[in-house]
């Protein structure tokens, strides 16, 4: 028996013993596993409709005729394919660039805040928008940014400027999408960083203070390095879902006037797949997204492991 097999045997033997000893702890994992099996793995069987001329379950999935890559071909040769890719990436990357640093800054700011009451108020106010649906957010944004009587435009007009129709102006719309998302989700995204910050050994800060480190130096040399693995993890997870640009948000906010910069893969799939009833095509687009996302995840995980020594797996 070579060394590798021996190691493997030892590993499984240890695991078996561990499971036997801690079975109630291991039982906790059953529910998530069942969830993933039912809702994430069983549906994969139906992904085959991406390769079929599927009309309805009435006529069966497996009995629908194979069309090979026809649905994929139709998607990638669509008049809008490249603008869909560009817009989707623009929002995904834009949201990462804007939201991630803001979440980290907010988390550090909350962590560093020494006034308990103020910290709680800020934290609660920052979380609150996460619980509002995009329908509500649309109403808020309309009252803020409407060209006719929005508060922001009232201010612009008050100072002698020309009102801007943020919701239908192709130049303003992407910024509105990215920053409104940051506003809504920044507080919620900060939770994971706050949790990481809570795990830092306080004695490190005490030692740094004894050594004369100021606040910024403590953040730079203790706080930031301590949460770097979490930042990398969050970043990698976001890269894995790079083609998820936020359907709910964009669906609520966009209109034909900003299709050129607002239409993303998911909104196109909604119109083409659900409204036009082309489920094979919609599934092909979904698979395309998933595959690219997976490749990017592996690539970024590899690069992260190589250059930062932090990785997901």
């Amino acid at each position: 028996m070579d060394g590798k097999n021996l190691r493997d045997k030892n590993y499984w033997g240890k695991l078996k013993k561990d499971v036997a000893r801690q079975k109630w702890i291991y039982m906790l994992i059953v529910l998530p596993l069942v969830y993933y099996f039912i809702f994430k793995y069983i549906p994969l069987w139906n992904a085959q409709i991406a390769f079929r001329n599927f009309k309805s379950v009435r006529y069966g999935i497996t009995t629908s005729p194979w069309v090979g890559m026809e649905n994929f071909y139709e998607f990638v040769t669509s008049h809008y394919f490249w603008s869909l890719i560009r817009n989707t990436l623009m929002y995904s990357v834009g949201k990462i660039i804007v939201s991630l640093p803001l979440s980290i800054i907010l988390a550090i700011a909350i962590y560093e805040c020494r006034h308990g009451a103020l910290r709680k108020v800020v934290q609660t106010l920052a979380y609150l928008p996460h619980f509002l649906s995009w329908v509500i957010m649309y109403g808020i944004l309309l009252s803020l940014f409407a060209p006719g009587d929005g508060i922001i435009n009232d201010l612009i007009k008050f100072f002698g400027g020309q009102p801007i129709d943020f919701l239908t102006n192709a130049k303003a719309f992407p910024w509105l999408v990215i920053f409104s998302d940051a506003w809504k989700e920044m507080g919620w995204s900060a939770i994971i960083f706050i949790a990481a910050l809570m795990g830092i050994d306080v004695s490190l800060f005490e030692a740094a203070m004894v050594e004369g480190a100021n606040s910024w130096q403590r953040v730079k040399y203790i706080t930031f390095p301590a949460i770097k693995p979490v930042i990398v993890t969050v970043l990698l997870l976001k890269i894995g879902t790079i083609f998820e640009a936020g359907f709910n948000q964009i669906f609520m906010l966009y209109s034909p006037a900003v299709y050129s910069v607002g239409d993303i893969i998911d909104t196109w799939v909604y119109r083409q797949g659900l409204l036009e009833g082309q489920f094979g095509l919609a599934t092909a687009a979904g698979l395309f997204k998933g595959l690219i996302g997976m490749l990017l995840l592996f690539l970024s995980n590899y690069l992260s492991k190589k250059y930062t020594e932090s990785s997901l797996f």
Partner: protein
Amino acid sequence: MKTRTTLIILLALLTAISPVFAGGSKEAKADDGLTHIEMWYNATQTEVGPLPNDWVGYDILRDMGIELDASSLPSSTTDQDMKVQAAAAANELPDFFVANREVWVRLANNGMLADVTDLYELMPERTAIMFDQDAINFTTIDGRSYGFATPSIITMNEGLVIRKDWLDNLGLEVPTTLDELFDVMYAFTYNDPDGNGRNDTWGYGAFIEETIYESYPGRRFEPLMGAFGVDGTWDMSKDSFGLQIHKPEFYDYMVFMKKIIDAGVIDPNWMAYKKDDFRAAWKQGKFGIMREQNAALHAQNNYAPFDANFPEGEWIVIEPPYGPTGLRSVGPAVRGLRIWCISADAADAGKAEKICELFEWMAHDEGYFLCGWGQEGINYVLDENGIPVSTEGDIGFEGPIGQTYIQLRSMAFNYTSETELLSRYPVYTCENSGKEMSALWTLRDMQSKTWTPANGMDSMPIPGNDLKTYYQQGLAEFFTGARELTPENWQAFIDQLDKLGATAWEQEGYDYAVANSYLV
């Protein structure tokens, strides 16, 4: 002991996840001798609750051997379409449901719907009232009918309306031409028509509202398109049939639209407004000219907020303006049919005859009055002319509880009878202004204006998604200035539109219109 505990936990887990596997077991029916019919309907009032479980109609239908399971569809047509199509894909269509023609076409072509050609004779009363040859053509593919086309709205129930009090305040006449209309829009925007000393009003108000026959930017702009003879998606005349967007006059219309946008005389929120925002805006006095529906404008509950805000305010219906070649139109006049479909599964299960029995019952007095107004003496009483009048209080058919009992009204109404109209739109006195009003008067006024005959336009072929997107996006970009509106740019836009399939769509439309004798 430990084994037993483990088994109990596993059993509990399996019980917890069992609904996942049980979902959609629509074959599981109680053996009660009744025909179970699952029905998705278009609610009369989506703001109030669903049809209550104690609706007396359920008992009557049980006596007829029918166990009805009625669910309301979402309020917006887009959500309705999505729900029906998703159900179709999963083979979870209800037995009997209502659909827009766009969705119906896809379902019929995919073999999801029952052939109902031979079922009309089972509904003699309803057929006599509703299913004329045009209605049957509306649901016919290759000589077979796949649904029952029923009226869903009162025809020509919209009109171009204007704030008469603003005209009077500024000493202006009712505009009759496009140039005069522009001048009034300008005055409404810049001459403080409400006299509040603030520059907070606009001439025209609208929002994007597309239908199968009113393409982007849709219905609210039809009176302006009508002045150029390009109202509706299609020109249905024999001599000049085609997509309106292909006509040179469409470019002229675009120039006029650009003019009112650039002059700032249209409420700049028009591209962002949803229907409710638009309706809230005119009630707040933000603009003075619009195309609106009779009941949305002058039904008592809808008019009350405007009456409270502006007791001296007055909206009047006007003829649409004449354009440069003397044309005018409020818009295309279609019958507004929606299609009741029997799913192929329901027909296979032998339910079609019972569904027809149910539908026919709703066209006879008992079902008609029960669905339309509720129970006599409880939800309504008949006045001296035999017109149903809502009883007092919440339980009356106009009250918040009573309204739930008439959720199936659209299945019963034919939308033309005097009884229906007089009952729906009674004369009332405004609380603040003391004016006497009726949405029926407004309806009659609107119907008397100039409309474009458009029989069959609402059943014409539909464009593919990319073509539709390009159509909408292109016009929107010209409106916002993202693309400069010049003859060259316009031609480039039309060329690309044709490349994406507009010419083929037009040819398909021509073939369909000829085959169905829709050309006039």
